[in-house]
């Protein structure tokens, strides 16, 4: 009996009996990894007791690639090798049953997973780490939550520091940063570079973190010299964070063309921070 990984049920006539046995044996008390379908990589903060993920000799084409929820609990005593159908009767009733895959994991797990992803993305982008030279790995698990928080925080800080026209300041800051990130990404794409749109947006958003810190310091201390120094330092830090990703995405002869607008955007945000009083 051959089993195909895309079919959740056994094709043989033993299937019903086996299924029932599997359901009985797979005890709901086993806690399962929250995200089995992802390819194994270093960054995902998920328990590593992962059974071999469904073999996707993944077609490198970026097509929507679907597959049914796969895998049996690794610690169950099920002897049969084919994957267990993940029909859990308690899904509809309680809503938050035990988790054979991400579809039925408890909500708290999802929250924790997303929060830890934000933190790990931040660490990867902004702080020195061994993966910086390989930008493909850097933001593999992009998310837009971090950038959203940082942009809103920067806008709020600038708005708070402004003594007049607070709304305009906020709108300008938010619009500049959001539109700027989109335009910068388009710039790289038009230069013939290879980046993924959302990954780049995510990166540019995370690189705002140093400027956020700088804006916070400038808001608390109103000394011009201090502001200039702090802004210069944080500007350099942001640019350093964005550099590897942007420069590796384009042809080496066009690196400057791709990097210059990024630097320009951060400089203008820096000016906004200094000029607000």
């Amino acid at each position: 009996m051959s089993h195909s990984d895309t079919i959740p049920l056994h094709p043989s006539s033993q299937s019903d009996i086996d299924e029932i046995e599997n359901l009985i044996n797979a005890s709901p008390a086993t806690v399962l990894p929250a995200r089995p379908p992802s390819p194994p990589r270093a960054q995902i903060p998920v328990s590593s007791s992962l059974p071999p993920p469904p073999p996707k000799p993944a077609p490198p084409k970026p097509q929507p690639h679907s597959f049914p929820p796969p895998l049996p609990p690794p610690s169950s005593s099920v002897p049969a090798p084919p994957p267990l159908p993940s029909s859990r009767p308690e899904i509809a009733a309680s809503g938050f049953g035990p988790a054979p895959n991400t579809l039925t994991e408890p909500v708290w797990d999802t929250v924790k997973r997303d929060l830890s992803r934000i933190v790990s993305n931040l660490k990867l982008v902004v702080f020195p780490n061994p993966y910086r030279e390989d930008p493909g790995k850097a933001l593999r698990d992009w998310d837009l939550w971090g950038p959203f928080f940082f942009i809103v925080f920067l806008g709020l800080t600038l708005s708070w520091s402004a003594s007049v026209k607070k709304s305009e300041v906020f709108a300008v800051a938010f619009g500049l940063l959001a539109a700027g990130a989109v335009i910068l990404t388009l710039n790289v794409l038009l230069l013939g570079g290879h980046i993924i749109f959302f990954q780049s947006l995510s990166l540019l958003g995370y690189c705002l973190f140093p400027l956020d810190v700088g804006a916070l310091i400038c808001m608390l201390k109103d000394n011009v010299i201090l502001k200039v120094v702090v802004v210069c330092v944080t500007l350099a830090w942001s640019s350093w964070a964005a550099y590897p990703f942007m420069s590796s995405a384009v042809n080496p002869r066009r690196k400057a063309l791709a990097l210059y607008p990024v630097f320009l955007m951060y400089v203008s945000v820096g000016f906004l921070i200094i000029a607000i009083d």
Partner: protein
Amino acid sequence: MDFNQQQSADENYGNPTTCFFHVFFKGAALAFYILFSFFVGNFVVIFVVTAVLAALDFWVVKNVSGRILVGLRWWNEIDDQGESVWRFECLDQESMARLNKKDSWLFWWTLYLNAGAWLLLSIFSLIRFEADYILVCGVCLTLSIANIVGFTKCRKDAKNQVQQFAARTLASRVSSTFQSAFTIV
């Protein structure tokens, strides 16, 4: 009597808490936006609160109510070659059949109505030339549309899978019947 009423209420909606949250954030964002833009003029507060509520709603729909109410999930991954791949996931057939009809009706309809409401509000702010408010409406509209597109693709994918699975099961059943017929003979 109370117990019976409770029972029937629960039988109507399979997951009342999830349904509540599904509707709550959408409603809160819309209500906050409408009330505050009429009565209080402070744009920053309106923007931040509405955007945060809309983002929370996006997250809740994508990660929680999509899973629980209709058994669908979608996300994007970057594979080893550096290409972006959209993934769609759905529960298998028995669980899908067991999903509450009222839950899924509520899910889809509130998604569409929410997007429609934000579209209307953005048209209003366009007419009034209030660029700030267009920004807010634009953000909320984008988030709603993203969810609609994601889940619709997911549902189509699920249907395709069902068809493929049915075809394959049929084929394998037919072949196993032939095999058993031959062994008997």
